[in-house]
């Protein structure tokens, strides 16, 4: 092959493979150069069940952020969950509720925000007071067993 042909094919090689790498980073990795900024909101749950860090936070089923950290509040032993919510959703009323939900019957757990009616909105460092804990299958079965036992007694 001539020198020109070699140089051309090397050029094509570099372009195609670099394009492949860039496509991996941008499309598959979904990389955004300056990741859109977020603000943090805290919520306390009695039980977070199988919720994990990075789980999605949704409003009306739409993804608006993710769980940043899960810890224990040392005073009342409840679970302290910190959400990171995208700045573009800065109009969530302060009396909104947060519930830990499950996608599908046995799927992964996520947080659903139930918007309230207040005209003041949550800001960075705000707190969601109305929370609903995760459904724990064992407790649920236990409740059903107790109820059926009571019914048979009557």
């Amino acid at each position, binding site marked *: 092959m001539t020198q020109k042909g070699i140089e051309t094919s090397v050029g094509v090689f570099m372009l195609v*493979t670099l394009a492949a790498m860039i496509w991996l980073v941008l499309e598959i990795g*979904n990389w955004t150069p300056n990741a859109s900024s977020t603000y943090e909101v805290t919520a306390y749950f009695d039980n977070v069940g199988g919720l994990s860090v990075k789980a999605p936070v949704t409003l009306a089923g739409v993804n608006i952020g993710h769980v940043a950290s899960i810890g224990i509040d040392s005073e009342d032993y409840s679970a302290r969950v910190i959400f990171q919510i995208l700045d573009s959703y800065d109009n969530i009323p302060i009396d909104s509720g947060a519930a830990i939900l499950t996608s599908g019957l046995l799927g992964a757990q996520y947080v659903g925000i139930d918007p309230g009616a207040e005209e003041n909105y949550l800001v960075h460092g705000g707190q969601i007071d109305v929370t609903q804990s995760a459904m724990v299958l064992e407790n649920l079965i236990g409740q059903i067993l107790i109820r059926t036992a009571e019914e048979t007694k009557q």
Partner: protein
Amino acid sequence: MSLLLQIGRFSIAIVQHLGRRGKFLPHLLPGVVVLYKRPKLLIQQLYSIGVMTVLIVAVAGLFVGMMLGFQGYYTLVDFGAESSLGLAVALFLTRELGPVLTALLFAGRAGSAITAEIGLMRMTQQLDAMEMMAVDPMIHVVAPRFFAAFLAMPLLAALFSVVGLGGGYIVSAGLLNVDPGSYWAAMESGVDVYEDVWGGILKSIVFGFVVSWISVFEGYYALPSTNGISKATTRAVVTASLTVLGFDYLLTAIMF
């Protein structure tokens, strides 16, 4: 007693070999000047090392991707989770199979060629002739091959992953009737750019360095005989493959 002697001799030989390989590095790295002094030499090597390896990498990537599509589907369909097939294929390819399989193929296809070429130059005294003419063979023969291989490896690994994703798509959308939209959507939402994509690229950079280093070293120090070259080529491929797998374990343990 003679068994102990054998073990001792063997261990010393291994350590000596490792030491020589390490000592080779400071001679090798200054050859980076070839990048701007003799770019033509580098392009020539990029052609014979990079471009000529594209076909084997692309074909292997396609079939590995298709295989992953099938295997992933049969595992996931039991849980009704075949919509995350795209994610499974993408994670496999970007984190592990892309860098590792490309490095193994690369060691077999390009690494062995580098070793044999340099070894034959040593045997036919071309390297000595260059030294006689005050032409540094490190810069004119070894460095272009080393840096071309080092550059080509991450690029080929990216190509492998992309072709593999295409192969997985062909199988899942074409043969298994997985929803094409969910194939890509699960991938885009589940693959993390730093942890998965960048981790894979970092791996392939390390593998590229290791494979090209071993290949040029074995060629440069091949015994100048027919037998010596065949041994050097074998050793280059075997050592490079094992080192890649060992480093893969280490990097995976450190990164993820």
